[in-house]
């Protein structure tokens, strides 16, 4: 090929990890996210155990049953995410479309329920300025919600791409990387639900 440039002279680049670059990138980024949520959850723990006033008992302020259902909903979305990726991997375009869109919709449902919960709590007079409990509750769940929201936006974009046939058994990396993020957000929620609602 005239004027062409050959790279790597027939030898592969050195690879520190035997996975493709986008995946390494997402792992690295998630390490940073872990530290972000650690800072919030860590602060919660320090403030809670250093608090002079008594902390409300589980269920005293927050509605545990509804959030438990919401947690289940979010876990379901992780399942559909796995399904979407599995479908893409084998080249099942219909399945990819269906499950990607389903994940986006279930994620939106989670957000919807959370917004309703916020409305209800604010209506009862429990806001971010309601003591340390309110401060930490809204900051932690709010930032988790923001992460879910970002994920849902990406998922709708991925669904649109899937409907245009963008994913198949050779091009599924985007979906896999998005899946990593989505499972991470899900995992964070399980920790938050335990720490904030149940303990």
């Amino acid at each position, binding site marked *: 090929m005239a004027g*062409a440039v050959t790279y*790597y002279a027939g*030898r*592969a*680049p*050195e690879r520190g990890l035997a996975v493709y*670059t986008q995946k390494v990138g997402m792992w*690295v980024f998630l390490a*940073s996210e872990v530290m972000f949520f650690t*800072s919030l959850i860590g602060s919660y723990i320090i403030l809670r155990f250093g608090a002079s006033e008594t902390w409300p008992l589980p269920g005293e302020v927050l509605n545990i049953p509804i959030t438990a259902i919401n947690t289940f909903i979010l876990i379901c979305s992780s399942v559909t995410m796995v399904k979407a990726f599995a479908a893409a991997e084998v080249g099942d375009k219909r399945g990819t479309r269906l499950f990607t869109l389903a994940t986006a919709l279930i994620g939106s449902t989670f957000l919807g329920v959370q917004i309703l919960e916020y409305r209800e709590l604010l209506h009862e007079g429990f806001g971010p300025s309601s003591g340390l409990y309110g401060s930490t509750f809204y900051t932690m769940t709010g930032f988790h919600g923001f992460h879910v929201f970002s994920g849902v936006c990406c998922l709708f974009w991925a669904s649109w791409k899937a409907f245009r046939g963008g994913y198949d058994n050779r091009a599924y990396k985007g979906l896999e990387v998005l899946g990593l993020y989505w499972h991470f957000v899900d995992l964070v929620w399980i920790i938050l639900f335990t720490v904030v609602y149940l303990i």
Partner: protein
Amino acid sequence: MATIVAEPTGRPVVREPHELSFIRKYIFSSDHKVIGIQFLFLSLFFLLAGGLLAMMIRWQLAWPGQPMPLGSLFPETMAPDGIMLPEFYNSLVTMHGTFMIFFAVMLLLVGVFANYLIPLQIGAPDMAFPRINMASFWVAVPAGLIALASFLVEGGAAGAGWTSYAPLSAMPEASGVSLGQQMWIVSLVLLGLSSILGSTNYITTVINMRAPGMTWMRLPLTVWALFITAILALLSMPVLTGAMIMLLFDQTIGTHFFLPAEGGQPLLWQHLFWFFGHPEVYILILPAMGFTSEILANGSRKPVFGYHAMVGALVSIAVLGFMVWGHHMFQSGMNPLLATSFMVSTMVIAVPSAIKTFNWMGTMWRGNLHFHTPMLFAIGFVMLFVIGGLSGIFMASAPFDIFIHDTYFIVAHIHYVLFGGALFGIFAAIYYWFPKMFGRMMNEKLGKVHFALTFLFFNLVFFPMHTQGLAGMMRRLYQTTGYEHLEGLQWTHVLITISAFGLFLSGMLFAVNFAWSLFRGPKAPANPWNATTLEWQTPSPPMHGNWEEVPVVYHGPHEYSHPDVADKDWLAQNERPDVVSPARP
């Protein structure tokens, strides 16, 4: 001309052979070299801005209550009749630290050189995620603009110090600053985002995009240093972001994280801040250590002494760096037992720095020393970093820290590390890599004068601060008059201020040299320093995609004066062993 770029999977992608528009080429560029140069201009601007703020601070300390030259240009809210107000002084101190630490030194070390050097030194065509890289620059720009603009809003810029200790920073009624403090927070949250995006890129690129043969132990020490720095930034920046968000919420939506009246904990801010802040200290010095190692080897025409120990020191600093934050808080009211454990871990983390210093000396030992400007600054780095490192031992000892905590001794220490250390390393790096970046040489004579004057004035400014601190002079005082134990010390302020003006002017020499060389410097050859690493084995400046042919690496990074190479005293990393065939490594 079509170019083929191998994706890490080996699948070639043909780049469109069209000429990029001006905007895509120079403004919204995804080429790591252009982004590095963009960061260079941004951070040099902030270096200048931070320097100007320092000059104003120095004026006030030397001649308190005297109108500043050109002081009448300032509005009534900052300096009526040219005499600065205490609240404006606090803003100056805060923003000087913020500009210098976050926007000048950090961006110079990481934004500029991690971007520019990592792909070139590891033999990659670009970063792993060029668009994310572009985003990291374009997030940093508004961050800087917001920080600058905060001077103009009502109440002025943030005035609670660059550490913004709560609750002063969380209580506008106590500090008199409300919007300025919030803009400070937003600015640093954006900068943190930029840093996280950048770090993700650097780490991924180093892990998975090294040229064939570029094994971990053949990485130039600059890459090692930048890689470890990126890990530190990746893991510490989000903690700062978390703390900043809580602080912002305390100010805006009525939360109580740091407000004790409602059960919040002021010390929590300090723990979070320094959990970030101590790794940040190493973010601000490790890359300069990398540059110094490499430039000392080049100037001495010897391999780096104890390469493996150097890498080991970097890694151990990264690990220990997360365990020593409490040494900033010995006098904070934290549990004294906790202080004891932090004191021990702090003593331990001094060891890797000692190893590095001795290895630098070992690199010079029995060398054949070429004193080009980068080499002078690298030697200056070692000489001054040693002072900064040794003065750190005084405050690492918690009982003696009782006396020097929050005095000018600390100010002297941080400047020996950040200016004598980091900034000397940065100057060395700019003089060294300028020919690669712009294809022109900088003026050597002017460079040497710049070095001599900077070295002289730097010591005249910051060494006396040690004695001021030992005399018990507290930090961040608008004026130090009125304290009996400080009587008779005013002349030291005058000496320091006059020297500081000298230091600023010698910085201007650098600016002149930089600007002049950019357009008029003599054309640079591909490898003006006879250096071994990969970036010198491609034209200056390198083309888009960096290489005609991606290099294959056969040798360690700093193979100078190899006995098996007879005709020259350096061996490029990609020289084929069948052409020159050294025994090892």
